[in-house]
């Protein structure tokens, strides 16, 4: 009996275990959330980062308990809005010049390299037309579908690659379709309506298209430099600078960069990414 009094009773043990479990579950969130004045952060991105940001944001929310109010768009739409009167706290934009302009106009406090994109050729499974190199797109009889009507830099970048390769006229002769949307174009390649197209690698990693096309490389020397770069920066409108910094650090961390890599981007913290940072001069002004 004496022993029984000195040891913890079953009920007490269960209570303590439940309290500890609850505390353990809540602690990381509270610890992170308590560091900051704000409990949410407005994040905008443009240029095709939405899938990656959705995954990274949900991971951040799970880790910190901070709510990310995220808006993502194609092309440079949101950047243009920010250069106008719109505001957000963190902005991940495409094209280095946009980040530099936001800095020059004192709308952005700083930016960091986030990731890079690369262009590839896509063909239907089996590659029936036997496409091997970019020049094969110019072969008579090859059915080419190009996203030439897509919002900048979509169509412009593809034309830039073809021009640099000196095959734009021959390829345009083979074009059976000039699509207005890269996402809408992909099923036409998958179905075999088109033999080949040029897209960013990220398209081939989208859940709807992954594993459904053959992916062939294009020499990097042909890539137009402008649209390759994505940056992330804190805007002057950040209500809680510490939180904005914390979020940007997380997105640039190995853990989040792995998500961007999985989604078809070249992470800034990779060897290739570091080389591109130097080559393209992705440095804050």
């Amino acid at each position: 009996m004496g022993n029984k009094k000195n040891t913890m009773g079953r009920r007490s043990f269960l209570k303590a275990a439940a309290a500890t479990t609850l505390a353990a579950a809540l602690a990381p969130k509270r610890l992170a959330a308590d560091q900051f004045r704000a409990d949410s952060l407005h994040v905008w991105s443009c240029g095709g980062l939405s899938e990656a940001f959705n995954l990274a944001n949900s991971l951040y929310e799970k880790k910190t308990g901070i709510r990310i109010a995220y808006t993502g768009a194609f092309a440079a739409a949101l950047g243009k809005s920010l250069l106008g009167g719109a505001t957000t706290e963190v902005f991940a934009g495409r094209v280095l010049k946009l980040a530099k302009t936001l800095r020059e106009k004192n709308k952005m406090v700083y930016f960091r390299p986030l990731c890079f994109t690369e262009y590839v050729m896509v063909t239907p499974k089996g590659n029936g037309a036997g496409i091997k190199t970019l020049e094969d797109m110019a072969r008579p009889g090859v059915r080419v579908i190009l996203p030439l009507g897509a919002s900048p830099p979509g169509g412009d970048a593809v034309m830039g690659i073809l021009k640099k390769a000196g095959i734009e006229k021959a390829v345009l002769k083979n074009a059976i379709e000039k699509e207005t949307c890269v996402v809408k174009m992909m099923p036409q390649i998958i179905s075999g309506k088109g033999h080949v197209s040029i897209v960013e690698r990220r398209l081939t990693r989208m859940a709807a298209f992954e594993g459904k096309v053959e992916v062939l490389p294009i020499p990097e020397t042909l890539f137009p430099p402008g649209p390759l770069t994505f940056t992330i920066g804190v805007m002057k409108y950040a209500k809680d600078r510490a939180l904005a910094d914390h979020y940007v650090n997380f997105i640039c961390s190995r853990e989040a960069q792995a998500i961007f890599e999985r989604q078809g981007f070249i992470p800034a913290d990779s060897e290739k990414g570091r080389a591109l940072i130097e080559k393209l001069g992705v440095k804050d002004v």
Partner: protein
Amino acid sequence: MSENLTKTVASTPLTWIRRAVQTGMLAVLGQWSFYGIFRCPFPVPFVDCRVCPVITCWGRITSLFWGFWLILPISVILFGRAFCGWLCPGGLVNQVIGRFSFLKLRIRNRWTRIAAWGGVAGLATALYLWLGMGNPRSMVPIRVGEFWNSVTLSFQHATPFWLVRTFVVLGLVAAGFLIANLWCRFACPTGGLLELLKRFSLFRVFKTSACNDCDACLKVCEMGARPDEPNCTNCGDCLKSCPVDAIKIGRKRV
């Protein structure tokens, strides 16, 4: 205006059931419909959802797209244009606006007979944009984003073509304040499609030979239609309105 003074609102148990079904369908299809008008980057919404860049639209991320395009033909085979009167969230919005409209236009004349085919013209336009022009993406899609903010940004980054399309649709819906259910009666492409196909339906609301053309049914119909005539959606509001009991529901024997 005098016609507005007559009893213009049907209030039968069936009408209340229909309202409940419409409200339920608003929860199911409402978000998708809203995206179709305000955030869909294509001029013809609801047809290219599976290859749409807008990530948060239910037409893309749920099986609603396939469900809709399966149920719609089945509903036409069974009940003609009942989708318009019972299931369409846009129909509900138009009917609510119609309650406040200046002119109910529940009359039969040459103009209403011709205008009733406006939906078919809307269908032809939609088919041309979709199949003829390939439904070109006409705005920079806001792929993910907060509700109202995304709508504002969608309008900011749309082409003039998309803006014209959207303001024409919204203008015709708003015109429902002048003429009741103007969009549904005289412009909706889906309504136009169902109008063409409803003649093949198995079940319908119809008039018997006892009909004396008193138009009592027309006066309670939100669509300004008589049973089994253009713009009748088999809503059933008119079932108890006939003084000679000439309105039936079921299979019409020709």
